[in-house]
């Protein structure tokens, strides 16, 4: 554990995002000043490269989505240390199911009932809000395999899905509040053609992850800088303005830990479970063995969660 | 038709010049060939024979400011612009190229059949639908030049003389009224050469074709062509009855060359041979 001679930050804009570099630049400068060593920023639209980079210690700090943070923790020796908070103070965002405004469907139950007639615009398989959350809360709870239940399932990203709904090319699709707001800004006329029929429970906002093996003193320096930013000190107002310019607009960071990933992890396991259950080709013994493994993991998470609740 | 044709010249080249870089390959060349004539074109290597023939067929445009070419009164080019209806004229002019210009990847028979493209409709030729009769004609032409058994061979793999004969068959197949032949017998053995030139002469004599043939073997010019045109350094230096081509005249045409090759033969190529042929001498 030697002192790092520079800190590299990887940034993966959660859903789709642009001009992140511009927003982060003043923050980077302030951080450089506070830490006294060079700080470099890399913005990559996909997390895979950043996670590999973190694994090989080419990146020390990164901003991930919840799901990618799990990968970083499992794979690249990462650890959540703070969490972003949006400018409105929301501690997270929500997954949505949308239909065309002229659609006959008003609840998710209607949709499930008429499933055989409907085309479903599902999210990218790696998207938390577009795929993971609806899979868990909607199809999982109703014991539905979307591929079999609906007439047709298309996987695409949020934007394409929203467009497809607006153009009546799919009957319903998944989305999330952040993407919805952005689309509404750019295409106010189009958004009027789309209606929300379902909103998920809260999804925790994005975590910041560092490499677990950073030296202790550096960890405290860094965490101190993040938490103090926009909260204390003479430059507080200026720093708040900087935070407001980052991504879709942030408030000061909040303390966090790997703990924030547990609900998503649980959902993830649930999804794996579904996949295995729906796999027709897997041998029955293998299936039950794998399911047992996953159940054990879910149990662990749940009991840990209970434990934590007990002490809080 | 015959009477009408005698009025206009078959080939009329009027002060055409052609400059490559700084080099004048044609220098105000004017010639006039009546229908039914058979004319030999001679001259030293690089004197502009091929260039002249390609101008006549409208394959090369002359210099901007001067000259025109007409075939049977139809304009081929003027002041360096090739006339737009050139294709129709070209169909009447068979061209035998010095380098054969066959399509190496196509079979010999197809190469010969390209001679009739102007008569075959675009669509039919695009789809390669040649009638049985057309194919038979092409085979007949190949048979005449002694290549019938090579019909399916790729043109690129034929021997030099075979390629030359294939080029001749293609031009014949065109059934043109004028034949421009650029050294059609250069790569042929004496018998084949005689056959080809006699065939040209027969076409000229029996069917009234106009023939302009460039030759290096002067004896053929003297024997088969009544009239000879001689070029040198891009200029026409002789144009008249072949029998006036005396040895002195020939010496004049071929004699003094652009650069320093002397004709006496006393000092031929002064390139040395290595004193010691190293490898083979040592190893043997």
């Amino acid at each position: 554990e030697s002192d790092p001679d520079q800190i590299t930050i990887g940034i993966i804009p959660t859903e789709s995002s642009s001009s992140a570099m511009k927003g982060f630049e003043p923050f980077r400068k302030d951080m450089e000043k506070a830490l006294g060593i060079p700080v470099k920023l890399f913005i990559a639209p996909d997390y895979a490269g950043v996670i590999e980079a973190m694994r090989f210690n080419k990146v020390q700090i990164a901003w991930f989505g919840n799901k990618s943070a799990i990968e970083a923790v499992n794979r690249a020796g990462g650890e959540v240390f703070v969490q972003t908070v949006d400018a409105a103070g929301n501690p997270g965002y929500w997954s949505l199911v949308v239909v065309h405004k002229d659609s006959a469907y008003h609840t998710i139950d209607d949709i499930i009932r008429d499933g055989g007639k409907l085309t479903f615009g599902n999210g990218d398989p790696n998207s938390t809000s577009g795929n993971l959350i609806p899979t868990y809360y909607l199809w999982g709870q109703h014991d539905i395999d979307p591929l079999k239940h609906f007439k047709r399932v298309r996987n695409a990203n949020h934007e394409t899905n929203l467009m497809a709904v607006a153009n009546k090319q799919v009957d319903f699709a998944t989305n999330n509040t952040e993407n919805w707001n952005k689309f509404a800004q750019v295409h106010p006329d189009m958004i009027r053609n789309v209606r929300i029929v379902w909103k998920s429970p809260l999804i925790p906002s994005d975590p910041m992850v560092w490499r677990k093996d950073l030296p202790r003193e550096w960890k405290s320096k860094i965490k101190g800088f993040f938490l103090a930013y926009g909260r204390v000190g003479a430059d507080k107002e200026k720093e708040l303005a900087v935070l407001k310019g980052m991504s879709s607009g942030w408030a000061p960071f909040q303390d966090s830990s790997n703990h924030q990933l547990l609900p998503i992890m649980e959902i993830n396991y649930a999804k794996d479970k579904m996949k295995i259950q729906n796999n027709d080709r897997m041998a029955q013994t293998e299936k039950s063995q794998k399911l047992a493994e996953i159940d054990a993991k879910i149990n662990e998470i749940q009991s840990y969660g209970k434990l934590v609740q007990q002490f809080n | 038709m015959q009477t009408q044709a005698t009025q206009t010249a078959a080939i009329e080249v009027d002060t055409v010049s052609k400059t490559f870089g700084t080099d004048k390959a044609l220098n105000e060349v004017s010639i006039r060939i009546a229908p039914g004539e058979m004319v030999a074109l001679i001259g030293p290597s690089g004197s502009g024979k091929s260039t002249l023939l390609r101008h006549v067929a409208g394959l090369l445009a002359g210099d901007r400011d001067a000259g025109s070419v007409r075939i049977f009164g139809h304009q081929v080019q003027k002041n360096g612009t090739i006339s737009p209806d050139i294709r129709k004229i070209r169909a009447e002019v068979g061209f035998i190229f010095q380098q054969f210009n066959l399509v190496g990847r196509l079979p010999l028979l197809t190469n010969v059949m390209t001679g009739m493209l102007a008569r075959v409709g675009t669509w039919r030729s695009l789809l390669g639908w040649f009638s049985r009769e057309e194919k038979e004609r092409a085979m007949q032409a190949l048979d005449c030049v002694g290549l019938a058994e090579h019909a399916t061979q790729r043109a690129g793999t034929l021997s030099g003389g075979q390629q030359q004969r294939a080029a001749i068959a293609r031009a014949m197949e065109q059934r043109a009224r004028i034949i421009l032949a650029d050294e059609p017998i250069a790569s042929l053995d004496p018998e084949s050469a005689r056959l080809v030139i006699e065939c040209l002469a027969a076409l000229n004599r029996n069917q009234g074709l106009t023939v302009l043939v460039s030759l290096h073997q002067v004896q053929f010019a003297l024997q088969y062509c009544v009239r000879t045109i001689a070029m040198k350094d891009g200029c026409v230096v002789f144009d008249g009855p072949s029998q006036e081509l005396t040895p002195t005249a020939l010496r004049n045409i071929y004699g003094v060359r652009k650069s320093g090759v002397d004709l006496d033969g006393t000092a031929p190529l002064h390139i040395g041979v290595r004193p010691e042929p190293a490898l083979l001498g040592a190893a043997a």
Partner: protein
Amino acid sequence: MTAVTSPHKIPDTPLCRKLLRLLAGLAFTLVLAWAWRGAEMRPLDLITYSANMAAYVSGFLTPDFSEWPQYVHQTAVTIQIAMWGTLLAVIGAVPLGLLSATNVAPFWVYQPVRRAMDACRSINEMIFAMLFISAVGLGPFAGVLALFMHTLGTLAKLFSEAVEAIDPQPVEGIRATGANKIQEIAYGIIPQVVPLWISYTLYRFESNVRSASVVGMVGAGGIGMLLWDAIRSFNYAATAAMLIILVAVVILMDLGSTCIRKRFI
């Protein structure tokens, strides 16, 4: 012309051309140096950290073929889409490629055609994909159309440049028979370029099969998307399996391409 040059004089390159060459060389070096800085080249890192690369590669050493029926199916899907995308593009690229060759078409034809093809190539496939999604909806057909547009631009360019590099003599031979332009092309040009055209077509077909983005983007699945998913979930065992399938497909296509071309060379 009649002035006799002194014998054996070695022709010199004119001074102005020498200077021009020097300048061009200098400019090229400067641009490369600028790009070197911009690209932050640090070749030594490759040696210093070769252990990292070995560690990364080791993840691929145990391919996991358990899902192979899915891989094969998705490969077939991609092949179907790529096949029609490429076929349509070839049909368009033959005339457009000829029209953008300087030795076939006049200036006022080849300039606009070439520029249109440049645009076809440079407009992102995603934009075409979304354009066609708006008309034909999500699904493989939108992928076919998007691939078609992009491949058209590429093939027309490659086709035309092969045409520009041909030997003009056989074409002149055909021209002299009084053949029209189309016949000249069919009998003089096409036989010369056909091996290269086949090679380009199969290259583009292959690269359309590989191409992940478009086919996945329009919701048609395809091996590219599966592969991408596997990479993103760090499932390197599955990735390796799919790569092996892809490499096999590409090798098969390359062998096929060699076979077909051999008949035309």
